[in-house]
């Protein structure tokens, strides 16, 4: 019996999660980076919470953005190397679905842990408890968009050796709206205001990304296999 597209996507998601459990180091790296960067700010600026609170949203977002970018390189690289990507392209399944599954797995392994870790970093930067939701929700959504945009960049740079810098240069301009609205959402939350408006904008970007990014990334993967 042949496998449906949804089942195939589910298998890929399950496989990537299982691989991540077996090879934890790769996924701890971006989290460690995030933790280090956010703890360096109080050390270098001032331990005064009032001052740190002023810059907390910016610090959290820049660190989250860079950590997410750091992890992007791994998205397709191993699969491209051992021929797994080739097998996906020849599976008779829609490559778009399979790429979407891989991107989702990537987000679950980097974006979600970042969103869960960010409140801790936020507390150390003087963010009030009431504002923590304003950190988790925007960072979870923002990293989803970053994973989706990054998937296009990661697929485009598959043929390039040591693609890290090029990948960052390609992805960074497209990631700016996420940074701007994400940091704004967190900043509004810290000030005790409603952060619904920027969160809606992030959601809209996520919807757009989910719809279009896998199409573009799968086309790029196909080109890289030629």
């Amino acid at each position, binding site marked *: 019996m042949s496998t449906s597209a949804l089942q195939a996507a589910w298998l890929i998601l399950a496989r990537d999660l299982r691989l991540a459990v*077996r090879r934890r180091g790769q996924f701890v790296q971006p989290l460690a980076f995030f933790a280090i960067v956010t703890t360096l700010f109080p050390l270098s600026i001032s331990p005064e919470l009032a001052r740190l609170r002023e810059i907390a949203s910016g610090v959290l977002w820049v660190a989250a953005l860079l950590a997410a970018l750091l992890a992007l390189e791994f998205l397709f690289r191993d699969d491209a190397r051992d021929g797994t990507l080739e097998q996906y392209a020849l599976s008779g399944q829609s490559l778009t679905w399979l790429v979407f599954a891989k991107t989702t797995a990537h987000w679950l392994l980097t974006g979600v842990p970042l969103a869960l870790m960010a409140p801790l970093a936020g507390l150390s930067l003087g963010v009030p408890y009431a504002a923590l939701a304003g950190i988790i929700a925007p960072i979870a959504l923002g990293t989803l968009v970053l994973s989706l945009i990054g998937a296009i960049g990661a697929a485009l740079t598959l043929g390039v050796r040591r693609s890290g810098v090029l990948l960052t240069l390609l992805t960074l301009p497209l990631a700016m709206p996420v940074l701007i609205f994400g940091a704004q959402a967190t900043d509004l939350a810290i000030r005790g205001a409603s952060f619904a408006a920027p969160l809606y904008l992030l959601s809209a970007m996520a919807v757009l990304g989910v719809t279009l990014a896998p199409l573009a990334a799968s086309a790029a993967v196909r080109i890289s296999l030629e």
Partner: protein
Amino acid sequence: MLERRIQAEHLHLWRGERHVLAGIDLEVGAGEMLQVTGANGSGKTTLLRTLCGLMRLEDGRVLWSGRNVYEDLPAFHSQVVYLGHEPPLKADLTARENLHYWVGIRRSLSAADITAALTRVGAGAWGDQPVRTLSAGQKRRVALAGVILFDAPLWLLDEPATNLDGAGQQLVGSLIDGQLAAAGVVIAAVHQELPVRSAPRRLELSAA
């Protein structure tokens, strides 16, 4: 059932300045095998990758069952298994898990199917070991188990016997014999003759 026959008509492909495939014609029908030989860099791998649609042709066409494969690649791909020279296995998963995820994307497998395939290729004893602990020849055997599991009419094999010992070479031969007996089609790029029962057809590629 559709006729199983792959035809390629004057395939042309350039890689930069190199004319890798210069007007290749071939036709292989049900129960037939084609051995592609040629020096390193003569385009054997390129030919196989072109036949399965991974590489786009500059000129010419590939037909499966009389139909141009580019018109419906997913439908064609569901009839093909391609094994490149690197076995597409994850070092951190066991042989069994690898097959489950690799072949499972195409067709649903039971644990018994996987066990049977692993036993067939003589990998029954180390099916539950992480692939990183296996030797190159053992990995190759696991990859061959994947080829059987796909249960596809067309096999495109790139040096299927690399890294295999004498018994392994015989195994590849008997697997191909089985595929041909089941009216399958096999195209293999090889350096050394594979020990198959029926005399295969040959295509010699010359370096461009």
